[in-house]
């Protein structure tokens, strides 16, 4: 049973990979071929059954010109290729023409604007040159994009359908941030041809919120198309859950079943790695990636994420080795540049790190993590404005990157623009609701703009999360003292003495777990003062007597409380 399914899959993937490379969708073709090779090898060499659909007369008529156009595309003469294909009737020929126009537009936009541009969005950020000319060029190019869409629409309204044309319009809608339209196009493309991984990726990029993603998956499942049973849908599900940090049992289940079908497919191992990484299970993640590197030593894809993890783990020597190793493979891959930049960042050479991130972005302006990481470097250099611009570009290319949103919030907070900061923190929190830092940041902002109720709510959320994470098996309640202290002070501002006392107590209780810190000693001091005021001298003395952590003023006060309490006790 499983064998026949594998045979079918083998044929499908083989055909898909050939077709995709015919259409110059190289990344998708690469993915398909990798998947094909990742399948369990047959016991004996067998002929792969491939059912190739017959070509329509139009396709046959267009064939010589398509061939010519493809050679031009191979020689990077996209304009020429598009010109040659003018007047071709078949869908695939039209796709090749519009695709080469799309590449051309992208190339020109990059050339005309020194690579600092992001077409379809905004102009320049890092180095302002403020030329209106650029804008004109870009708007001209955008018009060409619109023309592509119109041609595709015209083709589809004429009653024909072509999966790749739908894919193309999905890509353009994504560029224009028309995500719903993009989803529709991509979905109809996938219904016709599910083996286009690039298409799935675009679909993932168009789903920016967890709700949307879940809703969309349910839609596919309930649409009763053959798509939901397809193995490609399983891949999609795994990746989307992974990207939204939904580390649930179903995820590991479906990942496991995929691995049983594709035992040698590194893509799946990378997903495993990413899941472990998101789970903060660094050692396991490291071992997974090490295995991948043994299988496929010259693989650069996703290596930058690996280097990020090594950076976090402070494995300096391994990161240095990785940087050297990657640059011997290919110096001018964005992944390599990111790794080298991480290396420099680790050595606190932030200027150099920024230079390498910039190089990575010049090589691929959609390089997802480079914008965010560059923002961090700018923060390090105390250049808030540049950091803000980098983060902005980051969320622009990938609105799912909570780190960039958080960075934006921090940068604006430094600039004392709390309204802005609040919004960005809210965005970050929407993506990462289980991270207490997000809630703390939001609470902080609310406090700054005198919204104490909301602030308390946010800090309480942070506390809840903390308690989930840290609750020991024996039920001892442990939490970060800082949060408690903040909660206490805000309650005090609101005049809720009961709450204040509760949180102050909680805070100072954390001393055993977390050691003495500013927050705990401040809480202690407060408790001591409170006890003194309420004539519980014994308690006040106990609390104040060995407080000697904070600044001079506090220590002085503690001493005086202790003295006072002792005096009164002795009375």
């Amino acid at each position, binding site marked *: 049973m499983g064998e026949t399914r594998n045979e079918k899959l083998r044929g499908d993937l083989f055909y898909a990979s050939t077709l995709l490379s015919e259409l110059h969708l190289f990344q998708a073709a690469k993915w398909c071929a990798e998947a094909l090779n990742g399948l369990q090898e047959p016991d004996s060499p067998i002929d792969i059954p491939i059912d190739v659909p017959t070509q329509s007369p139009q396709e046959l008529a267009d064939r010589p010109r398509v061939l010519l156009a493809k050679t031009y595309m191979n020689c990077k003469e996209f304009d020429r290729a598009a010109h040659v294909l003018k007047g071709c009737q078949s869908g695939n020929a039209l796709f090749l023409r519009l695709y080469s126009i799309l590449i051309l537009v992208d190339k020109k936009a990059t050339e005309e604007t020194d690579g600092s541009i992001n077409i*379809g*969005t*905004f*102009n320049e950020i890092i180095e302002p040159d403020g030329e209106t000319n650029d804008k*004109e060029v870009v*708007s*001209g190019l*955008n*018009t060409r994009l*619109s023309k592509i*869409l119109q041609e595709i629409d015209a083709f589809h309204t004429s009653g024909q359908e072509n999966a790749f044309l739908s894919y193309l319009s999905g890509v353009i809608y994504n560029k*224009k941030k*028309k995500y719903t339209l993009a989803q529709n196009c991509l979905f109809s493309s996938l219904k016709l041809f599910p083996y286009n991984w690039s298409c799935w990726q675009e679909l993932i990029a168009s789903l920016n919120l*967890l*709700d949307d993603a879940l809703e969309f998956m349910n839609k596919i499942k309930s649409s009763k198309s053959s798509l939901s049973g397809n193995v490609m849908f399983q891949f999609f599900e795994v990746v989307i859950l992974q990207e939204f940090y*939904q*580390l*649930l*049992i179903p995820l590991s289940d479906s990942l496991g079943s995929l691995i049983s079908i594709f035992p040698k497919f590194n893509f799946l191992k990378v997903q495993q790695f990413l899941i472990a990484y998101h*789970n*903060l*299970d*660094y*050692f396991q993640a490291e071992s997974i990636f090490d295995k991948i590197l043994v299988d496929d030593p010259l693989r650069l894809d996703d290596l930058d994420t690996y280097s990020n993890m090594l*950076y*976090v783990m*402070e494995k300096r020597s391994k990161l240095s080795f990785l940087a050297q190793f990657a640059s011997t493979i290919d110096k001018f891959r964005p992944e390599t540049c990111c790794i080298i930049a991480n290396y420099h960042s680790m050595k606190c050479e932030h200027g150099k790190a920024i230079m390498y991130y910039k190089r990575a972005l010049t090589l691929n302006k959609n390089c997802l993590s480079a914008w965010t*990481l560059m923002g*961090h470097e700018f*923060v*390090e250099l105390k250049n808030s404005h540049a950091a803000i611009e980098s983060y*902005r570009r980051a969320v622009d290319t990938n609105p799912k990157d909570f*780190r960039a949103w*958080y960075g934006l919030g921090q940068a604006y*907070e*430094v600039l004392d623009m709390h*309204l*802005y900061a*609040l*919004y960005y923190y*809210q965005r970050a*929190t*929407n993506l990462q*609701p*289980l991270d207490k*830092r997000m809630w*703390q*940041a939001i609470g*902080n902002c*609310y406090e700054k703009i005198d*919204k104490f109720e*909301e602030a308390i*709510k946010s800090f309480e959320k942070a506390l809840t999360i903390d308690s*989930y*994470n840290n*609750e020991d098996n024996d039920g001892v309640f442990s939490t970060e003292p800082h949060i408690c202290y*903040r909660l206490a002070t805000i309650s005090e501002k609101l005049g809720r003495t009961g709450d204040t006392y509760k949180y102050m107590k909680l805070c100072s209780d954390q001393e055993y777990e977390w050691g003495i810190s500013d927050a705990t000693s401040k809480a202690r001091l407060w408790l001591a003062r409170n006890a003194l005021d309420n004539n519980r001298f014994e308690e006040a003395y106990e609390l104040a007597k060995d407080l000697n952590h904070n600044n*001079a*003023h506090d*220590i002085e006060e503690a001493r005086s409380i202790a003295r006072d309490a002792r005096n009164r006790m002795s009375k």
Partner: protein
Amino acid sequence: MVHNQKTPSQHNSTLFISPMVNNRRQDLFITPPNPASTLFDTPGSNHSLFFNLERVNGEANASTEPPQQHSRLSTVLEPLTQAEKLRLWRHDALMQHHYKTAEFIGDKVLALTDDPNDAFWLAQVYINNGSYLRAKLLLTSKPEFEKSVSCRYLASLCLVKLELWEDALDLVGESNPFRKDDNYQVRNADGGIKLEASMCYLRGLIYANQNNFEKAKECYKEAVLVDVKCFEAFNELISNNLMTPSEEWEFITTLNYRDADDNDELIKLLYTSKLSKYLNIAKFNEAETILKEEYELGENCDILLSKADYYYIQCSFDECLVVCEKILSMDQFNFDVIPNYLSCLYELGGKNKLFLKAHQLAENHANNPMTWLAIGIYYLSINKIIEARKFFSKATLLNPNFGHAWIGFAHTFAAEGEHEQAISAYAFAARLFPGTHLPNLFLGMQHLQMSNLNLAEEYLLASYQICSSDPLLLNELGVINFHKNNLMKAELFLQEALGAAKYLNSDSKTWISIHTNLGHVYRRGSQPYKALDCFNQVLKISNRNDCNILSAMGLIYLKLGNYFRAIDILHDALAISPSDPVASDLLKRTLEANTSSDLFANHSDRIFQLNLPTLQHKKPSAKKSKFLTPLTNKTKAHLSEHEHSVDDVHAAANALLKGEESSDDDDEVMDIESD
């Protein structure tokens, strides 16, 4: 001895008195013309599907024709006289541009015969030489010459050439003296253009040059009515837009195509294809297909030109450019197509081609106003307004009736925001072209920009009277009503504009601005969802002018209370133009509103619930992870390293504000500890 020629009537053309044609009569015997073609209608031509309104005057023809035939036969039989031989000689010399010979012989013939027709031909020689005054003097030298219709026509033509408008009008008469005679019913026998029509045309020309466009229009119309073959007059009517589009379409149905003989169907179709493309597009397409399929004129420049006009009106500049280039490849200096070509290049940003064309024209046709128009447009396209204005004004100097140049001239003022001057220039153009709505439209737009709403509306309504189907105009009317807070009416006009724009290329600016404006109207009329719909449509197509649209969308979302979406969109708007005051103001307000909304709280609760399973799933491993990494659960060390926790940001902020104080504190601590 001298056989005098026939006297032409106003119904004849010069062919009637041409010695060459008189001579050719002999050939007619060898290959007789097909009399049936003139006597009977070709079946179908009369009752064509094309126009039902057509004058049928078969009987009138039938009655005038036979005597003509007789006279032809009788003249042909006679041998040539001496004078006739000289006439042929003169004629051939003229045709071969041997003016000295023609003048010499013509003079002798005239001396021999004293015939007005010979005077006519001699005057022709003079005119070809450019000696208009001499020709005029010859033609008015004798009273019997003045009596001849042909001589009178030529004399007045000379005066027109000499730009002596008053004298020319005296000679040609203020109105058509033959009008009462026969109500245009008499057919022209010789196949040329009736002299009566030519005289009407001249009259029109004179009136036009006296800036009396109403009368000029009447005269031109009369000329075409008298003889449909008088294309000169028809062309003046159409190319100068003397008639409104509906007038044009009405006029063409009243014409008498019988004069064109068996070419009537062809002429009708050709004329139809030249009419305004704002109306009756179906008819135009039909005409075009017939011309293409039956007459195989699909590749003819004029048909292509009509096609180009059609595309231009539809704002399909790409297609229009393709057609224009096709025409120009066949005929490099086809001046009729050049205005379209230039406009398309301007619209599509083809600066380089504009440059080339302007240079080509300047090298070869330095005296043609079109050349200077091209140069002006080139400068306009590279944003050199002053230079552009100079060249447009040069074009208007060369031809004061050159509408494109006047409008271009006015545009240069409008582009610099000099509304007053722009208005006076547009007003001049409006006077030149009473039949086109464009100058009035531009005037309305200028007044709108100066916020003279009432004046603007007046002009736009005047424009609407002329052409009620131009989407651009309807759009402006919508805008005016929007500004006057007349939302119902604004919506009505904009919907009408959308209807008119149905044929438009949806990529065009007009289409986009109609949708945008409709969006604004809905927004004001508190129909937020409809408004969003419109704006989304626009954003789907275009990226121009984004900031404005995005701000409007942001405002709608703000009103709807969807602050997150509003902030998002306003960010996009500011990304496009970072200093836009409206967007930044809106963003500020939205951010403020955001703080006091519980939207985020609700949403985050939901998200939190969604994520709880993950949290619980993670719980068992939590302890392990804490053990594994000293950095606890910070996903990315950059975060934790750079700005440890939120409070530190806060501290850092304070530190930045008052750096010295905090360091003092540190010192104190140290002191105490050392104690």
